[in-house]
């Protein structure tokens, strides 16, 4: 008996029926081997790997499978099987090597482990998110640089930089940078090379379109995966959630002590929450409702006021620029920094006010509190970005001649100033808080790492980068550098200043929410802004790749016309005419999607019904089990009394009481066998299709028979 080391002891106590159990186990093992033999070698490895056994047993099973495979195939095919075996083994090794190489290349592996060990999975999720965004930007930079910037650099236009490099450009992004490939204006509308020509207009359009489409696909995929894994499935109550949230990766002694404390507090809270849930009077409810209404009004008013302030500041700024468009002095250049400075300041201060407001309202559920504060911050940030977009779309193009570059510069400034502010915030916010908390005001305490606020900042910065992709193709480079530095900055600040967050758990769900927020409103907003620019706004007349066109998309239309006049039957033209330009196609597509959604919805409804039915079945089986056990025990007792009255000297065999405590182990052994994810209703080929109650009944009958034999 080596399938389950734990089970061995328990079964060992069972003197009488040990052989039977051994037989059962052996036959289970034989079935397992038989099933494994039938699989392909790839599946076999997977299946053996997921067996919950120790290595030695796995080796044993594997060699058995091997032997029976050999004997089955006989000798005539040995050469062929040998060959195929060899090939598949080398393939597997190759695959394993790829996996390990990928792991070796993983960025920041050591740092991640350190952070996880000290602060737990929830803080680690911030860094994983940051890394994920970094990958997006690296990819975006590579394709933009490769397909748009490099061709442009090969054939530079005959413009010379209007002003020399003065240093302030690093902050403002204007002046010297204005004519470079950093911005839309630095690209020409010509073609490069002769036969085949490289059309800059098309390259610019399709590179950005392709990047945005790829982003959309990967975001939708991640959101869907994350939702499926973390939201749809998680309906467990609070007690198990807390018990299962223990972080095995934490290694620091102090962090573990803290975690234990936090967990105890949370357990106690969850207990008191349960008992207090019903005792809230109507007046208290009304009062609470009033407070919530008030705080919501205040926070919305704050957000609206800041949006208005930003809009009018933008208009004022535009006037200043317009007046001095010909001779750009250092002062006017510096004055452009005012808008991003105010935006970043608002982004810093209003969330602080929000968390102050949040402290006055008392939510019964701490999770609601977190969601409320996230929601308000998202409103604020998206409001700011929305008003900026409005300003860029309606006010800037009518006043500035090369307005795309101007928007690019604005975005550059926003990104840079935002970075500076987050640096300052780490140092002054967290560092000063730490110093004050440890030296002067111990009641203030050491700051916690606020995951929600930090992630929202990242989402905001990424939205800026996405909007900027059309106006400043190399903005991802800036964003890349920024994220790279942020990683180290946050790591240092975390290690020096912060303590692990007091509330653990739900890290996975929070991560889902953040990814969802990154998709909507962040990505969708940026996408619609870029799409609106491309489809509805007239590009500036004297600069950039699309100069002279009515709208940007006309570049594609003209290209299609040219292609169509050359040869009628080309497939891109056909696709363009029949798919992109036809309403019928989109109508059909939406119809099909709607029908599919309806089908899937029906399927989920059906599954929900099935789940409730299965649950009832389990409960019934549990009752059956209890009933049978009861009956058996009664029978056994009767037998014992008659047996002992007949032969008082005979030793009483193992009682059923004892077996009852041993039984579940046996039960477990069978349910553990692979391929049986739902043991309660499954009759998989691996384990014998007995329910535990049946096995028990069988064991009991056998014992009773043996007793009888002995008795007579």
């Amino acid at each position: 008996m080596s399938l389950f080391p734990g089970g061995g002891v328990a079964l060992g106590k069972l003197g009488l029926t040990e052989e039977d159990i051994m037989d059962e186990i052996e036959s289970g093992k034989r079935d397992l081997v038989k099933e494994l033999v039938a699989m392909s070698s790839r599946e076999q490895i997977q299946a053996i790997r997921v067996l919950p056994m120790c290595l030695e047993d796995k080796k044993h099973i594997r060699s058995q499978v091997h032997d029976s495979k050999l004997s089955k195939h006989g000798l005539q095919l040995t050469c062929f099987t040998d060959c195929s075996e060899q090939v598949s083994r080398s393939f597997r090794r190759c695959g394993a090597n790829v996996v390990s190489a990928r792991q070796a290349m993983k960025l920041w592996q050591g740092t991640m482990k350190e952070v996880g060990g000290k602060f737990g999975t929830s803080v680690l999720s911030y860094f994983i998110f940051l890394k994920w965004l970094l990958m997006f930007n690296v990819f975006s930079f590579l394709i933009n640089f490769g397909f748009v910037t490099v061709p442009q650099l090969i054939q530079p236009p005959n413009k010379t930089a209007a002003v020399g490099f003065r240093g302030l450009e690093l902050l403002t992004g204007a002046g010297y940078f204005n004519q470079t490939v950093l911005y839309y204006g630095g690209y020409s509308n010509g073609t490069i090379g002769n036969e085949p020509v490289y059309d800059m207009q098309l390259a610019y359009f399709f590179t950005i379109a392709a990047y945005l489409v790829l982003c959309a696909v990967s975001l939708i995929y991640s959101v869907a995966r994350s939702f499926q894994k973390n939201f749809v499935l998680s309906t467990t109550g609070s007690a198990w959630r807390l018990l299962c949230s223990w972080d095995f990766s934490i290694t620091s002694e102090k962090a573990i002590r803290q975690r234990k404390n936090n967990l105890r507090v949370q357990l106690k809270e969850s207990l008191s929450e349960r008992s207090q849930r019903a005792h809230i009077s109507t007046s208290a409810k009304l009062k609470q409702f009033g407070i919530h209404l008030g705080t919501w009004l205040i926070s919305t008013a704050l957000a609206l006021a800041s949006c208005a302030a930003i809009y009018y500041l933008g208009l004022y700024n535009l006037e200043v620029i317009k007046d001095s468009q010909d001779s750009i002095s250092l002062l006017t250049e510096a004055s452009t920094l005012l808008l991003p400075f105010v935006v970043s300041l608002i982004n810093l201060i209003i969330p602080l006010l929000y968390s102050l407001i949040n402290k006055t309202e008392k939510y019964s559920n701490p999770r609601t509190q977190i969601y409320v504060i996230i929601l308000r911050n998202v409103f604020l940030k998206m409001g700011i970005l929305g008003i900026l977009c409005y300003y860029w779309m309606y006010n800037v193009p009518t006043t500035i001649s090369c307005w795309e570059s101007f928007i690019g510069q604005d975005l550059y400034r926003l990104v840079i100033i935002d970075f500076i502010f987050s640096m300052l915030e780490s140092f002054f916010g967290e560092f000063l808080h730490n110093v004050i908390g440890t030296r002067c005001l111990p009641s203030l305490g050491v700051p916690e790492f606020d995951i929600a606020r930090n992630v929202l900042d990242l989402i905001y910065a990424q939205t800026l980068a996405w909007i900027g992709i059309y106006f400043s193709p190399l903005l991802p480079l800036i964003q890349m550098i920024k994220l790279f530095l942020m990683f180290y900055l946050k790591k240092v600040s975390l290690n020096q200043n912060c303590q692990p967050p007091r509330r653990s758990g739900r890290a996975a769900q929070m991560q889902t929410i953040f990814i969802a927020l990154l998709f909507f409103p962040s990505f969708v907003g940026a996408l619609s802004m870029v799409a609106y620019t491309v489809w509805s706004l007239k590009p500036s007349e004297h600069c950039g790749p699309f100069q002279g066109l009515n709208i940007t998309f006309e570049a594609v239309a003209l290209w299609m016309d040219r292609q169509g006049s050359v040869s009628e039957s080309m497939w891109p033209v056909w696709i363009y005419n029949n798919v992109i330009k036809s309403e019928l196609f989109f109508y059909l597509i939406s119809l099909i999607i709607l029908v599919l959604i309806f089908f899937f919805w029906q399927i989920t409804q059906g599954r929900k019904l099935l789940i409730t039915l299965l649950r009832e079945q389990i409960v019934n089986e549990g009752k059956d089990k209890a009933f049978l056990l009861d009956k058996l025990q009664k029978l056994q007792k009767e037998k014992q009394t008659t047996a002992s009255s007949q032969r008082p000297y005979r030793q009483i065999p193992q009682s059923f009481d004892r077996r009852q405590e041993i039984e579940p182990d046996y039960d477990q052994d069978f349910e553990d066998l692979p391929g049986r994810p739902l043991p309660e209703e499954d009759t998989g080929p691996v384990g014998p299709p007995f329910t535990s109650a049946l096995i028990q009944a069988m064991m009991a009958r056998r014992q009773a028979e043996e007793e009888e034999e002995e008795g007579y």
Partner: protein
Amino acid sequence: MGTTASQLSKDLLSEYQELTFLTKQEILLAHTRFTELVAKEERSSLSLRIPMEKILTMPELKSNPFRKRICYVFSTSERKDGSLTFEDFLDLLSAFSDSATLEIKSHYAFRIFDFDDDGTLDCGDLENLVNCLTGETDDTRLTPDEMRQLINNILEESDIDKDGTVNLSEFQHVISRSPDFVSSFKIVL
């Protein structure tokens, strides 16, 4: 690395790769860390058992509240002393690795939480589990009343067949619905 790589033959290494969720680097690293615990002259044999006390000096396990249970569960020793061979150690790391499946992880979590090794989580096991998580000393423990209430809640949430204990399938059902478990049931060397 060089010396340890020569100790694990290529065949053995690929066998370990096939049977566990670990990559080559992880296995080699595990071997290095494992042999560090042994005196130099004993390093040659792979079937060597390292007593639990020595295993628990590793920083990854040292302060884990379940450290002893982990050793007992993964030990194949006949004497039930929690001592580990290198293969047992690999089993441990494999179950706690990133790529291990939810089934494997929840199976071993169940065995770790099953303090009396009887195959179900009964009230005693749950009490032990909660005490392990909140700290063993008297001032950190929950009061008996709270404990009773908590265990009631736990059973209410997970004991589907109402037999007063949580068996493996019920446990796995609960675990499959708490998404944080997979990411937190992890030990990386």
